[in-house]
């Protein structure tokens, strides 16, 4: 009989602790803020439609990389009809800032791999380089 009280009590304490994230967040009524991305100042158009970029920018980066490095195809024809240089530093960082754009989501969601910045430069692009 005594054991039953102890067991049920233990289970109850466990459930309380286990569901802590749910009831504590509700009680304190704060919500995690989604990351605030700083959009590029000048460019109005991305190299691909935004829903596609949200979903598959990783694949686009890999495709650009493989084609540029392994097949020497450094000029890409984007979906919007324009031509771009397949360069992380010059094209992508030509519009976006690593700390105010890329890192905002990547830090929030804890996605660190692959590590581009160990090798690729973040310095500001020379004006007029991107077409």
């Amino acid at each position, binding site marked *: 009989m005594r054991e039953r009280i102890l067991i049920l009590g233990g289970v109850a304490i466990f459930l309380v602790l286990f569901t802590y994230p749910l009831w504590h967040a509700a009680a304190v009524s704060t919500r995690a803020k989604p990351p605030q991305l700083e959009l590029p100042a000048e460019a109005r158009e991305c190299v691909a439609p935004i829903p596609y970029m949200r979903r598959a920018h990783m694949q686009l980066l890999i495709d650009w*990389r*493989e*084609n540029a*490095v*392994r*097949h*020497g*195809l*450094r000029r890409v024809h984007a979906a919007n009809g324009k031509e771009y240089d397949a360069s992380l*530093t*010059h094209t992508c960082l030509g519009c976006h800032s690593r700390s105010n754009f890329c890192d905002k989501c990547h830090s929030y969601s804890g996605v660190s791999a*692959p*590590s581009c910045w*160990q*090798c*690729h*430069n973040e*310095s500001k*692009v*020379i004006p007029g380089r991107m077409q």
Partner: protein
Amino acid sequence: MTITRKQFLKFAAASLVGAAGAKLVSGAEVVKQAAASKNGKRWAMAVDFQKCRWDQGCNQCSAACNRAHNVPDIPDKAHEVKWIWKEKYQTVFRQQSEVVNPALTSHPLSLLCNHCSSPACTKVCPTGATWKQEDGVVMMDWHRCIGCRYCMAACPYGSRSFNFVDPRPYVANINPDFPTRTKGVVEKCNFCNERLAKGQIPACVEGCSERALTFGDQNDPASEIRRVLASRYAIQRQPELGTGPSVYYLI
């Protein structure tokens, strides 16, 4: 409907084969495209080391290369990274030094990747991180390299360097137009492939004020390098190994 284990395994195997096959086919397409654009070139370099002034303090070639490619300057010689560097004639052509004209052998010369036509390094790379491009340049893909250093063991010329440590702290002024590398990958001269793509000559060739380095398309009979090779006798490093180097040392 129930599926037996045997059927499932058969299906899984077939899917694997299909997926691998598809990847092979798509890979082949891109390569064919790239091959067509290289136009049968074979890049080569001739080193007129009798014009070289390494022994008088000049290092324009390696300085230009290191600047262009963010090659680190690491004080610990064991971990040094070098793409083009100086060496004594007697060290490079050990078995041909004894009675050769000292006016010739007293000059230092520049060593770099020989961009062989039958490279030993690309043969042994287990991931395809180094391969031979159609135009003769032996390329490195630093995204794929696992740092096994098999290519370093295979290279008969000692042309390759490994990043034993993170190189970034040892690069004085990072050139934003070219990436640095990270620790754990192998690197070497890339014949300035990124400059060749824009119609420029390699940085070392441009940087040498003595015009000791000649660069060009070996397959073009009208190129300057062919003219130079026709007018001077040239030797190569260890040609008996069958690697087919593309770097010539002019006598």
